[in-house]
């Protein structure tokens, strides 16, 4: 680089420096895979949300004479299920419950886990030991086993399934939150806040939260994929949603007996779970590498 251009660069007006989050956002937007996943997820979300206004067939209305029609039947583009209900409508309506029971546990676990981790990391000492040793107990169970143990004991139902999955993910988020908070706790700006007389709650809320939230958030988005699979899995076992509600896991279960008659219709609900799960995974990976600004 010549001396002149270097001078020119120095003389150029600096302008407002782009913030950290703006940089992350730009990197995510430039990533084709992330954008494709975001678009697919948005489409699935919106169609589930707007399902009643899309002019679909009634997802509850069955008919004995048109059971298990194959994909591509007139009026039934994705065929019909074992009770003659329109698969397209059920898949789109199914998104409502499936996404709710898949995503809500992660949101709840994110809120509880972040609070617990922040307290454990910031207060330290005995409080930290008490919280973190309790968390360790949950790590003694493989997550599938824990989810099934809790929902199996509580009994079938949407609420119980959400509760059990929240309990599964909460410890993992708490651990991440605690380790991130411990890393930030001794930094100068926290010390400065403490010196200025801020109380612990203010420091945690105002000074720490913004600095720890990013990594915890990215970790949590990575959990949504697992949560979707587990939530639908609980319904698949008969521990989540109850019939006749359209929900992907439950649909997969009730269509299981139809694999000898009309196999590919039976496989459709699983393909939806797969699509949502892989999109969330790729999106989370995209965000993670976008936040790793050093590379």
């Amino acid at each position: 680089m010549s001396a002149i251009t270097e001078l020119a660069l120095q003389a150029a007006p600096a302008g407002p420096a782009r913030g950290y989050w703006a940089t992350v956002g730009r990197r995510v937007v430039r990533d084709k895979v992330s954008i494709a996943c975001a678009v697919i997820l948005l489409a699935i979300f919106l169609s589930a949300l707007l399902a009643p206004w899309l002019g679909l067939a009634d997802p509850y209305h069955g008919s004995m004479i048109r059971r298990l029609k194959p994909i591509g039947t007139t009026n039934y583009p994705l065929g019909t299920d074992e009770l003659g209900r329109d698969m397209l409508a059920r898949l789109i309506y199914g998104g409502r419950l499936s996404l709710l029971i898949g995503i809500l546990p992660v949101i709840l676990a994110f809120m509880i886990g972040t609070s617990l981790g922040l307290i454990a990391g910031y207060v330290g000492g005995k409080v930290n030991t008490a919280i973190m040793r309790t968390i360790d107990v949950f790590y003694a169970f493989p997550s599938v086993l824990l989810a099934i143990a809790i929902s199996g004991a509580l009994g079938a139902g949407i609420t119980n399934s959400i509760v059990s999955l929240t309990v599964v993910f909460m410890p993992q988020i708490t651990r991440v939150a605690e380790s991130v908070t411990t890393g930030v706790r001794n930094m100068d700006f926290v010390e400065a806040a403490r010196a200025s007389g801020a109380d612990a709650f203010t420091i945690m809320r105002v000074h720490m939260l913004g600095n720890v939230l990013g990594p915890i958030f990215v970790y949590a988005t990575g959990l949504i994929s697992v949560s979707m699979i587990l939530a639908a899995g609980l319904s698949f076992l008969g521990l989540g949603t109850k019939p006749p509600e359209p929900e992907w896991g439950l649909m997969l279960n009730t269509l299981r007996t139809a694999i000898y008659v009309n196999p590919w219709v039976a496989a459709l609900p699983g393909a939806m779970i797969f699509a949502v799960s892989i999109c969330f995974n790729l999106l989370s990976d995209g965000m993670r590498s976008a936040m790793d600004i050093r590379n």
Partner: protein
Amino acid sequence: MFTYIVRRIVYVIPIVISVALVCFMLVHITPGDPLVAILPADASQELAAQLRTAYGFDRPLPVQFGLWLWKAVHGDLGHSIATGRPVLTEVMRAVGNTVTLAIAAAIIGFSFGLLFGLLAGYFRDTWIDKVATSIAIAGVSVPHYWLGMVLVIIFSVQLSWLPAVGAGPGGSGQWGWDWEHMKYLVLPAITTSVIPMGIVTRTVRALTGDILSQDFVEALRAKGLRETHVFRHVIKNAAPTAMAVMGLQLGYMLGGSILIETVFSWPGSGLLLNSAIFQRDLPLLQGTILVLALFFVFLNLVVDIAQASIDPRIKRG
């Protein structure tokens, strides 16, 4: 090293007790009376009270827990309400089948995971890396119970190559390593292997990438070492972490087999758990979860100690 092992074992004791407490409490978070599955619908008050005393449900919770734990330590997990057989016998027989499945799945999943991970890490940002990481991400994102169904559709329904459900002739009792039995294992094992395959691939890829970017690799190459020898150093450095991840995955396969065993009617601990849940067989539910969780804790312990003993970098102080 010895002190590390002792400390690690001592640390396990409170975990084991807490795990037992959680399993014990499972019965008590169950809505309704824990007696509900045993009592006939038209049982009299006296019979209910009698049974409550017989099962010890009338005592305070801590006493109940103490008694239950004391019995459990002596291998008595009570009797299954559905079959009347001792819970421990039922669970151990089922766990044997789950171990068979998990080992078969581990052989498949870990081999492909290591292969894909090493290739992806070594040929980073090439098409090989892209293919391997795509397979890995599909592996960790796929609802495995659905994959099981799809494999059954392809290989059992359409091609009729492999059986769809069960564990072969002789049922759950006799397992043999011959094709008559093994063909029942193929689909469940492949289905179980996809998640560990994906996770091992991602871990090993990241490890290989990290190690290859370190200075000592540069030094090895500058010294004139052939690439195959450099690669041996990479494997040596990646081994402890990769092993720990694989150990953990084996634990997940053992404990989280319920969905796949349900799809394939594989007579393992997962299927047992499934029937315990739906028959409200609480002692069996409690016992199965306790045994599986203890397996998991024990496996974690073994992995930690093994990792510390092969990796001199882990602080043992």
